[in-house]
């Protein structure tokens, strides 16, 4: 399953070292996790375009997520995939408390088909 750099939108293929070393284009270490089945479903259904945050919002969302997860080392890659927390926008969150209480790893859903996982929780 591929990832996508949150900052420059570059698609990073499965198993790429860029996930650990940073995006080859912009150096970002903040990635969306794209689920195959969802990406496929979106292609098939031609769903509405994925809402994109502007650059300032992306930075704010990254800061917020790193802060919430207490990932202070900015060199550490963060992959967001936590449907237990949905980032609707900067300062707007929706939490699935049932998933959180069932001790599922914290996954941030940033927009349809794009996820960020707290790898420390895995």
């Amino acid at each position, binding site marked *: 399953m591929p990832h996508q750099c949150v900052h420059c939108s570059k698609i990073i293929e499965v198993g790429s070292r860029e996930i650990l070393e940073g995006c080859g284009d912009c150096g970002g270490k903040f990635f969306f996790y794209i689920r195959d089945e969802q990406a496929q479903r979106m292609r098939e259904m031609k769903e509405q375009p994925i809402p994109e945050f502007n650059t300032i919002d992306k930075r704010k969302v990254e800061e*917020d997520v790193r802060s*919430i997860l207490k990932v202070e080392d900015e060199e550490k890659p963060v992959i967001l995939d936590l449907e237990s*927390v949905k980032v609707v926008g900067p*300062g707007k*969150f*929706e939490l*699935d*408390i049932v998933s959180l209480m069932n*001790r599922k790893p914290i996954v941030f859903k940033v927009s349809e088909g794009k996820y960020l996982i707290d790898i420390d929780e895995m």
Partner: protein
Amino acid sequence: MIKIIRNFARRIFAGVFKKKGEIKLGFYGSPNAGKTSLANRICQDWLGEDLGSVSRMPHETREIQIKEKVILERDGKKIEFKLIDTPGVATRIDFEDFMKFGLKRKAAQERAKEATQGIIASIKWLDDMDAVIVLIDSTINPYSQVNITILGNLAARNIPVLVVANKIDLKKSDIKKVRGAFPEYDVVGISAKNGDNMEEFYEELFKLVKKV
């Protein structure tokens, strides 16, 4: 899986070496249910000091707050509590809600982030509790996802629970509705703000401790 085993081992280990009599008592519930008000009331009654600040604006408590060595006495029996006040659990956080209370955009977004962080922390702390008081605002509908999820999870974890229907001093308070919503639990009605019915609360608290 490793985390579950680690938590289980920690509980067992903590159980063996737990200081006799110390009960870790958590306060859980929706934002503005009165968790900090009740924790403050207990601390005032037995220590003469507050545990945390309260506000009309939701999510005033955004970090776990702890007060140790709170010793309660009843009928000659002393019990030492460690009170753990937790941030309110919610399913949706929107910074614009805080702006309605006069916060600037940046401060409101920061509060939203901290509130989200607080909810995750509250849930992570569940495993560490010996007993939990679930605060329910008796002036609003008790059938909420938050109340039902918290109570269901505590039951699954075998953590003893006391349901406290707060704000009975208000006209809209309906404690019967709370009792009707959760008939399998002991429900005590109080006003944490005014200190109403605290005697019955302490009586129920001592009963709760026996289940630990």
